[in-house]
């Protein structure tokens, strides 16, 4: 069910009924199974993902910060509240907090970054701003088997 629905989700009035038909089970069972998977956190979302450039988000970057270990959780939670942040990870390195920022334009992006940096109380010298210059691959389909 997950394999099929990742790639070929049916855009129909009753998508769960469509999936049920493909799988040979009832619509109710499809909905119950999906409900469990959403509840357990296996499924993050069922719906559309939008191309940021097509919805006006023209500036984006990857940021790395050196955050003192005793503050990393607080800073990460603060960063996570920004809707401009889509990915935020703690990683094993001196630069231990990595997050992506998207904005409508460069000015907006830099304003948000500065606000985050000041809010986190991190000196500029402990921040890396790493915009992409070329994209070679962007594919997040996870093989389940």
């Amino acid at each position, binding site marked *: 069910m*997950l394999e099929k*629905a*990742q790639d*070929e989700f049916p*855009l*129909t*009035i*009753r998508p*769960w*009924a469509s999936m049920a038909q493909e799988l040979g089970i009832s619509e109710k069972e499809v*909905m119950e199974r999906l409900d469990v998977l*959403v509840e*357990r*956190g*296996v*499924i*993050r*979302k*069922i*719906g*559309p*993902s*939008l*191309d*940021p450039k*097509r*919805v006006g*988000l023209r500036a*984006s970057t*990857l940021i790395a910060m050196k955050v003192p270990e005793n503050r990393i959780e607080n800073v*990460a939670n603060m*960063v*996570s509240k920004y*809707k401009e*942040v*889509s*990915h*935020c*990870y*703690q*990683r*094993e390195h001196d630069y*231990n907090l*990595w*997050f992506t920022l*998207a904005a409508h334009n460069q000015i907006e992006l830099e304003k948000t970054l500065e606000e985050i940096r000041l809010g986190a109380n991190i000196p500029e010298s402990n921040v890396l*701003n*790493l*915009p*992409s*210059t070329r*994209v*070679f*691959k*962007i*594919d*997040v389909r*996870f*093989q*389940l088997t």
Partner: protein
Amino acid sequence: MDNIDFEILLALQDGIPLEREPYSTVATRLAITPDEVLERLKRLREEKVIRKFGLFLRKNTAGVVANAMVVWEVPSNRVQEVAEYLSKFREVTHCYERRTTAKWRYNVYTVIHGAERKIVSEFVNKLAKAVEIEDYLILFSVSEFVRRSTGRVER
């Protein structure tokens, strides 16, 4: 994208409801039919405003465990060759060239997923030998704080 498209995306971008007819609520609110909602979604997908419509999994609970960002220092005249080679592997889910700074010279970034760290490390070491790059760092993730769609509409 017109105003109705915008409203549909605003309503559904965080997920469609697990109801038998998921598009009925937004259709009623916008005074259109569910069929029209679907037609608009299909068109937006054709126009590639919608990159993908379907299920999005949370990778750390779907059996894929080790997430590593590997950053490589690649001579600029070899970036295309090396990046294209690394991108061939299905374990490499993303590959970007990024700006460098005076002190941070890594220019090629790959995100690699694997079942466990040891497997990822071995895999990366093999890649490094194959592309003859010695300067690289494997940055394993310790915690995931945020993972959501980059593209969003806001009022």
